[in-house]
């Protein structure tokens, strides 16, 4: 296993006098093999970006462990150990803030190499940069541009080139194309996939778009309010979703079936704070099939081969 995430939880406390705890992640556990793609799906605010930042060591977790190739990556203080710097990389969501606005493309491209002391000779710099750029389908003329002179798709490609230069073991893509147009999205995703296959990188692909995740992933995990509620191979989860929330997500209309949208169950109180049902299933207040037993929180159990779900009714079937 390339990456193993074990029982990661994250809590924030707010308020000075009567501190309240907000649970953002609750015992998230999953694993990722080399060269494999795991798609992480969920609505905005479900904690998927926080999870990404925790794995990378940008935010310390409240509890839990992350292993890369069998070694624990955090030191005691919750920070990333030195030897793991540069081995896990990320592509973020917003191209407009993905690069330092005051640095030219080629400074940005060289930065990871210089920081990792993998710096080649000065003369090789330009060569190396243009090679990287060519790999993501951009010409040498972009080397001397500033980020504000580039389009979103071009910036995301440059970020990919940056990431590629370090040859990481793990790449996290946090909604890398949600701000891009469809035709540009297709370009960027194809390059991402090519790079991943070529370098045998493990990819954690975070998105709210099930179609995109379905195209790129080998396995898909669905996240709701800080918990993984279903986890299965990509084909299986789309054919046979078990959790009612996954079914709601899949009910998102597709081009061919425009009637589906009207059938999608309107959610009753997704915004309602679920604090009242402390021990209930996370989906309890919205679930159309909620039963008495759902007041007890279900855990992720294997229902069929490789298909995990956290729902009592799915388990019983």
């Amino acid at each position, binding site marked *: 296993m390339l990456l193993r995430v074990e029982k990661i939880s994250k809590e924030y406390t707010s308020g000075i006098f009567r501190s309240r705890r907000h649970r953002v992640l609750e015992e998230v556990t999953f694993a990722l093999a080399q060269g494999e793609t795991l798609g992480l799906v969920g609505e905005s605010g479900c904690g998927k970006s926080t999870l990404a930042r925790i794995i990378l060591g940008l935010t310390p977790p409240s509890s839990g462990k992350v292993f890369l190739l069998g070694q624990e990556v955090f030191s005691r203080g919750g920070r990333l150990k030195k030897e793991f710097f540069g081995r896990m*990389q990320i592509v973020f969501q917003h191209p407009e803030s993905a690069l330092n606005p005051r640095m030219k493309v080629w400074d940005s491209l060289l930065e990871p190499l210089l920081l990792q002391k993998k710096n080649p000779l000065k003369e090789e710099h330009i060569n190396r940069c243009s090679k990287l750029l060519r790999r993501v389908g951009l010409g040498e003329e972009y080397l001397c541009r500033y980020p504000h002179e580039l389009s979103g798709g071009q910036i995301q490609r440059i970020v990919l080139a940056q990431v590629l230069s370090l040859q990481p073991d793990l790449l996290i893509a946090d909604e890398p194309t949600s701000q891009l147009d469809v035709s540009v999205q297709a370009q960027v995703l194809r390059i991402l996939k090519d790079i991943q296959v070529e370098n045998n990188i493990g990819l954690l692909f975070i998105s709210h778009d099930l179609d995109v995740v379905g195209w790129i992933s080998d396995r898909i995990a669905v996240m709701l309010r800080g918990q993984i509620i279903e986890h299965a191979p990509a084909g299986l989860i789309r054919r046979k979703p078990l959790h009612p929330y996954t079914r709601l997500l899949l009910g998102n209309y597709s081009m061919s079936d425009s009637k589906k949208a009207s059938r999608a169950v309107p959610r009753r109180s997704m915004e309602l704070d679920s604090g009242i049902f402390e021990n209930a299933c996370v989906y309890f207040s919205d679930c159309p099939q909620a039963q008495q037993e759902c007041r007890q929180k279900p855990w992720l159990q294997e229902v069929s081969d490789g298909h995990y779900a956290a729902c009592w009714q799915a388990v019983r079937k």
Partner: protein
Amino acid sequence: MCILENKLAFAGMVIIAMLVILALFAPLLAPHDPYVQSLGQSLIGPCRDYPFGTDEFGRCVLSRIIYGTRISLVIGLGVTTMSTIIGVVLGMVAGFHNGRLDEIIMRVVDVFLAFPGLILALVVAGLLGPGTLNVVIALTVVGWMGYARVIRGAVLAEKEKEYIGAVQTFGAGDCYIMLRHLLPNVMTPIVVMASAGVGYVILAAAGLSFLGLGAEPPAPVWGAMLNYGKAYLQSAPHLTIFPGLAIMITVLAFNFLGDGLRDQLDPRMKNLHFR
């Protein structure tokens, strides 16, 4: 848009350039020695020999104003530089490590801000005694908090941007991130603040020396000249009018420059485009 197209900012820059020339070449440009007293010629009004007249000791007011430019600029630039350095360092540290350290630094800022500025400067200058360096120290003590606040705010916003996270995953240390990435991206408001701040400092320094807490007496200081002139306000108004004008023009010039820089560097003005 080029800053030269902003007329006021351009005027400010021209005046500041002239002041710098005056300060650098004071011995060549001043018609008389600013220190030589000739009691026989005291309190003469503006005339051909003494364009701005003479003071009660018969010293040439114009020459004293020209030499006074040196002290004013040294104090103005010195205080602003020191305040900026202190403010930037503390503001960066506070904004970047927000938590306990941030809390401590910002409370210190609050404590300093709780004193009325000029009174605190008076106390510090009074404790340290007269002298140009002491004025610089006193005004720095009351002037750095604004810079720290602004920098901290800018750093708080900037460090949430995604490229900072990316650089961290490349393995960059805190110091590297602060110096290479955060500093260049938060300097804009500081440049604007500092250029307008020079004018304020010169005004405050004039105030201090008016109250007798500036450089030692024979030195030509604009604020002190006002102070000595006030006894002769009726009989020899030129003793107060000309140093007053010098202060006003200098302060205005720096304020114009500050305003112009703000219009120039404000990203919202720069990125004005339509979708």
